[in-house]
């Protein structure tokens, strides 16, 4: 068995965080392959179902990336996302998925470095924490 490699599902907003990921790529900054990116138009459109489904299917972490407050392309989608993330966190926490596995971060289009730092940081922390308790349950009981 090699080292545990966390699987992180990342929902990145098209205008900021996804662009930052693109920038990180074109600047040849390497970030861990553990992050599987799904592009959404805005962090405000990350439905609780996306997050729940990811964890139920065994994701070790979920990272939502959006524009900084004040910069959302749709004015305030990110502020709605923040309340929703707090809500989902409270639900998940009760069933063994702690806040260390579910992150919301603001990453601007120009912040390719920060994207790399956050991806490194989350991956390292999840490596320490170990696999999601849900990982081996699979589709049996969900």
């Amino acid at each position, binding site marked *: 068995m090699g080292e545990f490699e966390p699987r992180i599902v990342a929902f990145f907003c098209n205008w900021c965080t996804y662009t930052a990921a693109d920038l990180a790529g074109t600047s040849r900054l390497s970030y861990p392959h553990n992050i599987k990116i799904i592009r959404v138009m805005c962090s405000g459109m990350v439905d609780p*179902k996306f997050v729940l489904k990811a964890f139920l299917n065994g994701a070790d972490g979920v990272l939502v990336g959006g524009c900084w407050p004040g910069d959302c392309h749709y004015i305030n989608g990110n502020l709605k996302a923040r309340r929703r993330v707090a809500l989902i966190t409270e*639900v998940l926490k009760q069933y063994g998925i702690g806040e260390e596995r579910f992150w919301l971060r603001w990453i601007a289009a120009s912040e390719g470095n920060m994207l790399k730092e956050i991806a490194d940081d989350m991956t390292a922390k999840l490596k320490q924490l170990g696999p999601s308790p*849900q990982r081996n349950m*699979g589709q049996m009981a*969900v």
Partner: protein
Amino acid sequence: MPKFAKLPFKKDELNKNLSGFFKGMLENGAVNAVLVPMAQAKKGVRLTLVTSAANTAQVDPFAPIAAVSGAKIASSLTSRPSRRKVAMVLRSCEIRAVIELVKLKQVNLDNVLLIGMDCLGRYENTDFAKFQEQGGTSESFLENALAGKTSMPDFDIAGACKICEFPMADNVDMRLCAIGAGNGSVFIEAVSAKGEEALEKSGLKIGETPAGRGEAVKKLVAVRTEARDRKFAEYRAETNSFEALGDKLAACVNCYNCRVACPVCYCNECVFLTDTFRHTGEQFMMWADQGGLLKMPNDTLFYHLTRMTHMSLFCVGCGQCTSACPNDIDLMPLFRTCADKTQARFNYQAGRAVDEEQPMAGFKSDELVEVTGQVK
């Protein structure tokens, strides 16, 4: 200053006297209709919409049953309102759900006189039938329940009621008071200006206040709160992972009755019944391929967790979900323990106040910074 009218009753005449009160309100035009629990022709007690003063004889407001949440009936009657004035006699959980539905624009209280009845608990639908067969009446229930005894030989009040810390309804125009009213009488309390006007029109005389009521309510609330906290702790210890949650829900067949019965599950069309969840055979096969197998119907935990993110902020702990489950899954503690956490996070309490904004209905730029922990 709350105003009280005393309604003494002789044995077996509580409902007769209450019927007189509702009759008076209809005759004197305080309201044009009353929605009130009423004995049905053969058996059972159901909320009944009465528009004629000649038809109040069978009212039974204190009957320990709530076959369907009255909040759903309130929504049917007022989401496209009639413009007639209607008094609604509901219990605390129903009223708290009504408050949430007002905010969701699914109940309109403009022409409603809300009357909250003191609730000491309800029996499950089928247990209530047994209760009646065994000779139980609202009077016997009140007498026993006020002395702390709700159990019958082989059943008791719903689990939700045993841990309900709201036996007395708030946010009402009037109350039907049994707690602390003393044996052989109930009180009718006018709480709002609207309620006072109606009480005057009903023809009852405003008089003494029930002296022991405040204390009695407080004592009952303390007992219930303690029972609630004990249940929460027990339940949380048993349900702290997806796996444990899966065990609790093992008998679930995805019928979705729990969401149909829930008064605050507010979507007109549940997403789990839409095309989003009408998958192709190919899709199911792909999911099965991931681990080599797929439990069918699938998405059971997914459904319950989604419901939690949608409505736990509004959960009033009425227990209608538990009552509705054909497979005897006790959903109430699941949703109440979850709701307790989600509501606390936003310093919100379902049903507390009409003017308290529902947490997902707004946002501020300078709040919840701890979520990202980032400052620019």
